[in-house]
């Protein structure tokens, strides 16, 4: 414990990362001011033809998929009884909580009148809309993640009585988390069922909700491995022995699960092509891009996970997790931006402005800084000494 406090106090303020982050925050603050005083058009290339850009394709769709580690890990430990992965729960839930918080934060930039975000719940309930379902689930799941993570914050604050009450709700919160995630991960795919003529047939499928849900499980598993790798590199001093001991077993267990899920996802995609009889599109330029995504970011990591698990090689598993995370980004961008409006002439196609990318970087930087603030203070990578023997 004293080592951790000493490490926290001895951290220099002027590091290359801190300086880089500060520059991005200053630029981001300026862009935020511009966005909210001059409107979306002043900072983005969004048009009526392309109303959804990288704020939706990357910040929202990718953010939600990569935040799936929270429900995947808590379901593995609390529902499937995989207690050997217990040390992965808090980092995974923290990543999920921050991921969803930033999704909502990013949405404030993308929605024309963000102050009206509560309207669908308070003023005019559009209960037949998929968008309503997504919004309701994200709002409820963000609350669930907040409650799931709160024991760490309460331990830090020394509020043991409230912590005890919240810990009693663990199983209920886990079940709610799985239900809500299943609903909205798939519903995000269902959003694109509205646009069968706009999305390229290789990515459009009546089974898009299934694709989104299955791929979110692979994304969640991979993100837990990736996040633990980064935490091990940067915050090892804050880890207790249990976290260090479970570092590789978590990678092997989650790697095996990710291999199976990626294999299932690949099968789902092939079934999708077969059911829609889209084979002919595979021999076009778009087909080459589709095959690149499927072979490079689904089959390859699936193969790498399998080899890594069989040969007990954590490096291969960690490399596969990075490829899978990149693959999820590519898939969500393909569905929402790249293969969307594919028939529009090249000069009218959407490409994000430098300011849109700047705001996305700003949001990611905030996420990293908040993550660092929390793991260096709260018992995320170690057990609080006052709660060593309790769950």
């Amino acid at each position, binding site marked *: 414990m004293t080592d951790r406090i000493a490490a926290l106090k001895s951290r220099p303020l002027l590091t290359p990362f801190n300086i880089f982050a500060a520059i991005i925050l200053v630029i981001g603050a300026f862009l935020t001011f511009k966005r909210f005083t001059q409107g979306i058009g002043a900072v983005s290339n969004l048009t009526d033809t392309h109303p959804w850009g990288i704020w939706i394709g990357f910040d929202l769709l990718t953010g939600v998929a990569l935040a799936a580690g929270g429900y995947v890990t808590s379901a593995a430990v609390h529902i499937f009884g995989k207690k050997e992965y217990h040390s992965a729960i808090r980092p995974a839930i923290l990543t999920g909580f921050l991921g969803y918080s930033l999704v909502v934060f990013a949405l404030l930039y993308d929605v024309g009148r963000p102050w009206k975000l509560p309207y669908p719940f308070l003023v005019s309930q559009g209960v037949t809309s998929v968008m309503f379902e997504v919004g309701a689930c994200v709002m409820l799941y963000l609350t669930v993640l907040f409650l799931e993570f709160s024991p760490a914050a309460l331990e830090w604050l020394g509020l043991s009585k409230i912590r005890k009450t919240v810990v009693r709700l663990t199983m209920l919160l886990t079940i709610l988390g799985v239900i809500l995630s299943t609903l909205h991960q798939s519903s995000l795919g269902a959003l694109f069922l509205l646009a069968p003529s706009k999305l390229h047939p290789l990515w459009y499928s009546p089974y898009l909700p299934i694709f989104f849900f299955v791929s979110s499980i692979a994304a969640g598993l991979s993100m837990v491995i990736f996040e633990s790798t980064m935490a091990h590199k940067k915050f090892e001093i804050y880890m207790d022995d249990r976290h260090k001991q479970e570092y590789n077993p978590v990678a092997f267990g989650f790697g*095996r699960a990710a291999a*199976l899920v990626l294999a299932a996802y690949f*099968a789902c995609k*092939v079934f999708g092509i077969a*059911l829609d*009889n889209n*084979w002919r599109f595979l021999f076009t330029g778009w087909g080459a891009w589709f095959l690149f995504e499927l072979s490079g970011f689904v089959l390859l990591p699936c193969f790498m996970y*399998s080899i890594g*698990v*069989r040969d007990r090689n954590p490096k291969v598993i960690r490399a596969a997790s990075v490829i899978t995370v990149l693959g999820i980004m590519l898939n969500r961008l393909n569905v929402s931006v790249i293969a969307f409006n594919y028939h529009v002439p090249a000069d009218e196609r959407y490409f994000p402005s430098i300011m849109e990318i700047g705001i996305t970087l700003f949001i990611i930087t905030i996420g990293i800084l908040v993550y660092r603030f929390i793991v260096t203070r709260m018992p995320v990578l170690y057990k609080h000494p006052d709660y060593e023997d309790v769950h």
Partner: protein
Amino acid sequence: MEGIHTLQEFMFQTKGIIYILAVGYLLGFVWFWRFLKMDKKREQ
């Protein structure tokens, strides 16, 4: 009158390709499961 003229039309309209893929996938999955479990056998 529309009819089935090619193997591809036959496979698509009868969903034959789906059954073939399903059987292939089930066989592949069994093999894949065994492949992933090989590390435990090695340890034993």
